[in-house]
């Protein structure tokens, strides 16, 4: 059930890119204690545009989890903080994404996600990294 976020866990507020080498995150939405104030190390930075099919799948999972009404649009630009996901919604979304894409999302990576597009870009990266992972099967991230 969708609810306004007043919880410890949620995705980040929109990322402001200050220069190409560092990205600092704007402050957390009220009531969310999710870590977002510290500069994000480059390896977690969201850089490339996500594939459209990834964005669409993420939108579907998010819409289902949050029971978003039909007339409310969810797109790549949608910010998680504005969709009213609380912490339980967020962990369920992350789990749904992990299952759908067969990846593992670290808490610290999830921190840098502000929009649906960011989530899709992270997924694309994790999926690509997984398909080029070492024979030992150890995931790269």
């Amino acid at each position, binding site marked *: *059930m969708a*609810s*306004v976020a*007043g919880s410890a866990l949620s995705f980040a507020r929109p990322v402001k890119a200050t220069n190409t080498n560092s990205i600092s995150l704007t402050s957390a939405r*009220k009531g969310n204690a999710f870590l*977002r104030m510290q500069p994000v190390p480059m390896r977690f930075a969201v850089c490339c545009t996500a594939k459209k099919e990834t964005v669409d799948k993420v939108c579907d999972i998010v819409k289902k989890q949050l029971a978003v009404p039909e007339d409310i649009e969810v797109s790549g630009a949608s910010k998680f903080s504005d969709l009213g996901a609380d912490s339980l919604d967020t962990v369920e979304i992350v789990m749904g994404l992990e299952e759908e894409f067969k990846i593992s999302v670290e808490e610290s990576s999830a*921190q840098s996600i502000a929009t649906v597009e960011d989530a899709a870009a992270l997924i694309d990266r994790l999926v690509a990294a997984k398909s080029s992972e070492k024979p030992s099967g150890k995931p790269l991230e």
Partner: protein
Amino acid sequence: MHHRLLLRRRGAMPLPSPPQPAPRTPGVAGGRLFASLPSPPPLQSRREVHVWYLCPDELNDHSQLDMYKELLSPSERKNALAMNGPRLQKDAMLSRALLRTTLSRYTDAKIDPRSFEFKKNKFGKPEILWQSDGSSMEWPLHFNISHTSSLIACGIAMDTLIGIDVEEKKRKTVKNILSLARRYFTPSEVDYLAKISDSDAQQKEFIKLWTLKEAYVKALGRGFSGAPFNRFSNQLETNNRIQISKAAKVCNDSDSGCDYLSENWRFALAGLNSSYYMAVCIEDNSRGSENGSVPLGLKVWKTIPFIEDTLVSGTDAVKLIT
């Protein structure tokens, strides 16, 4: 001004108009608003927590909602409008109005709800920003807010960090309870849940654990990844005390992620209106000088700010579980 809305009900005490800083939005009669926010009994000690909540679905009067909107800062209004859809926008607005009016109650009506300013700690947890020019008083107030789709709660404590989480008892998860627990909880908590055969009972215990962990993380103020749920256990012990302990396997190897997971916190878990679980967590400053923790004192009010306040703790509406 909307006279008909500023009713005096049983329990509301008329207050003299106090001197106040100039209202941010000229034209709103600050003095009259003050008169309708009666001061609650003060927070007696660091062990006491006061919770004020409102139900957005019950607040639909446009002039009332406009009155609440007037209390917000421009950036709060902007943030509320950025939410996806009218319901979320209304909830976001009410959340700020609840916070501001609640805080005002604890300043002996000396601070107008509109006057509060806020800052974030380095992890993003909101705190009151008191003017440092010495012109206004300060109160050692700490707060935390929690939302469900049907209820917004604001917890207040004096001189101690606080976290609060409210959740609908019947909230259905999309994912299976045990898979959620395995992904996010500690092994001992997974075992505890796995032993519950009735799925409704299991779901309720899951929600109880969730609210407790959430309240702790919010009190710590470091964010979810700053205190991952699977690094600490909340045990509901048979004597009804809630014990928090670091998850042994995860925290024994010098995992710096566990260093600040302190264990000196007090919890209260209650059923609210038979539809919700509410967990409150405050820092325990007693330094173990007492035998076992003295329970946290909890008072709960349902409020329609400026209209009516109802003390619900001490009635059937609030059932302490611990």
